[in-house]
């Protein structure tokens, strides 16, 4: 009847047959070819009852509506801006979604966002043709400083680990390095503050060892053990 050939969280490769039979349903990263369910990317297979999906381990980011991403303004037009967030297509930030202020039709849009500005923005809409619309009209979205701070890249699939359960990991990094951190689902992280190198080291450690046990303790140790606040007391 139906057969499952892999275990939950097993590493699978493109073309690998993960299951056979009509009882299993393919979700993200898994497709059906007649009787077989096949993996389409390098990833960890995730089995939830009858649903088989893939947690991709390779770099490409798949944008989803409501994702927060960090992007760069690459063009300033008449009715909005074009943004590069590392996806195969550039995204659009229309004027009406850029700010709560009223924007005069004749005003110079560069006073809001200029070429090369970095923004923490949100995907508001996506079409089938991969056209992506962005918005800045949501809490927690803003333009990043031009003079301070830097961007680092991580594999998009590691982003949840950097954020941690209910934001616990990212809060700890912020506290112990005295830095502001913004994380985009597209694998871009903005770091600005006192001890940026240390924050980068922590992120690199997460990228390397996110699958191993005791990560939280390792990061805490790396960042100097005791909470900076406690030390001040």
């Amino acid at each position, binding site marked *: 009847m139906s057969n499952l050939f892999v275990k939950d969280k097993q590493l699978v490769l493109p*073309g690998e047959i993960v299951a056979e039979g009509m009882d299993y349903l393919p979700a993200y990263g898994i497709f059906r070819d007649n009787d077989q369910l096949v993996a*389409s*990317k390098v990833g960890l297979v995730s089995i939830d009852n009858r649903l088989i999906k893939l947690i991709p381990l390779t770099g490409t980011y798949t944008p989803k509506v409501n994702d927060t991403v960090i992007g760069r303004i690459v063009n300033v037009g008449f009715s909005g801006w074009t943004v590069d967030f590392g996806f*195969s*297509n550039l995204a659009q930030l229309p004027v009406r979604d850029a700010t709560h202020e009223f924007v005069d039709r004749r005003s110079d849009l560069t006073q809001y966002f200029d070429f090369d500005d970095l923004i923490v923005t949100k995907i508001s809409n996506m079409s089938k043709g991969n056209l992506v619309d962005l918005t800045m009209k949501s809490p927690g979205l803003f333009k990043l400083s031009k003079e301070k701070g830097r961007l680092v890249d991580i594999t998009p699939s590691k982003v949840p680990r950097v954020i941690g359960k209910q934001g616990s990991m990212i809060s700890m990094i912020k506290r112990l390095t005295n830095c502001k951190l913004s994380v985009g689902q597209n694998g871009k992280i903005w770091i600005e503050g006192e001890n940026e190198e240390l924050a980068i080291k922590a992120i690199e450690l997460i990228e390397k060892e996110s699958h191993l046990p005791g990560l939280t303790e390792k990061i805490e140790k790396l960042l100097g053990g005791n909470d900076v606040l406690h030390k001040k007391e």
Partner: protein
Amino acid sequence: MSYTKRNDGRKFDQIREIEAKVGIIKSADGSAMFKIGKTIAIAAVHGPRDLYPKFMQNPRKGILRCNYNMMSFSVDERIRPGPSRRSKEISLVTENALLPALSLEQFPNAVVDVFIEIQQADAGTRCAGICAASMALADAGIPMKDLVCAISVGRVGGKILVDLDKFEEDYEEGSTDMPVAMLPRKDEISLLQIDGHIKPEEIEEALELAKKSCKKILEIQRNALKEKYEKEYGQDE
């Protein structure tokens, strides 16, 4: 006309020693090296990314662009740098060998660029290039229906054999070279060419040999990919 023993002592159904590594070029979205005998191919993938000129864009799906090139010193007689008619043809057949394995509908208007460089050549370069490119595409996270394996088969001195080296390609008493690429899950052929002449029933025999060899190559490609990702994600159990 008899080739009773292979020049390097291999059996007729034996492929040369293979070394494969994934993720060798950090600037690329995906990359891999595939070495078979003395032939070394490296491949890098950039994409999916925006495609210019715009007229080349396909609004229904992404396109694949392959560029095959041999380093000038990869062969005994130096090759003048730059594309040649041969390298342009190989770029095209490589594209057609890889396309059936890719699902590019998710990237309309975008392009996936694959660059293949041959660092050292001892025959079988286009096949080595395809094997490297296939791993690089998987490394880049391009959605694929299958990996792609390629190997040359042929008839040398009357004998059907696999993985011709330069000596066999140049064999004076008759050599027919047949590069083959396959999608191993369903044994589908995506590259097939012949340089020489051969009987139809010999082709069948050669294709069966190619199929068997591709399965061996598949294992090596899978191990190379696993080696990179298991190290990063600790899946050794």
